[in-house]
């Protein structure tokens, strides 16, 4: 596709359940980023993948959060044992150089 795509667009889950969020970056983009956008807050960096290098996980808020990127393309962000404070919009971005192109985000609601 022409842009970054994310699925699902909306996810409602119960507290304690695990969720998986998917990101398809722009073809050929070597870098992939996950951000979290909470109400009234700026975008918060979560994790960064670059090519085949080890990812930078420094932004992950707890060990309940993990992410992987398969074949240098699609990425999955997994949140285990979800908590209400995990409710936010999760944004994925990809880039080839300086600026990042964002997907539409997944709105996660934890009841």
């Amino acid at each position: 596709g022409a842009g970054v795509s994310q699925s699902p667009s909306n996810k409602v889950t119960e507290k304690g359940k695990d969720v998986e969020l998917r990101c398809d970056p722009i073809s050929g983009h070597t870098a992939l980023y996950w951000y979290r956008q909470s109400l009234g807050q700026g975008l918060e960096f979560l994790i960064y993948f670059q090519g085949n290098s080890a990812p930078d996980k420094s932004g992950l808020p707890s060990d309940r959060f993990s992410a992987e990127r398969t074949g240098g393309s699609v990425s999955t962000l997994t949140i285990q044992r979800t908590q209400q404070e995990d409710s936010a919009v999760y944004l994925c971005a990809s880039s080839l150089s300086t600026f990042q192109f964002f997907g539409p985000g997944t709105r996660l609601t934890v009841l």
Partner: protein
Amino acid sequence: EDQVTQSPEALRLQEGESSSLNCSYTVSGLRGLFWYRQDPGKGPEFLFTLYSAGEEKEKERLKATLTKKESFLHITAPKPEDSATYLCAVQGAGAGSYQLTFGKGTKLSVIP
């Protein structure tokens, strides 16, 4: 630690009423300052990148400028379709230099 502060938090303008949005930043070695537009329910859309003080870029009714401490997004004769949240972000030269540090945004409403 890189920091970005945007002001005002919200701005209401009449159609045709020009104004400016402010982005103040502190960063260890600026690699780039970015402006994005975000519409409700959508991801940020890239507008501009500025790299050095004195640089200016224009796109339609928008003009971005950069100094060593802040950036301005000038909106000339805005139209209702310019209503959106405008995000500013910086990329520093320190550790984790690929990360963008975002401000909280300015929500712009342009009234017909």
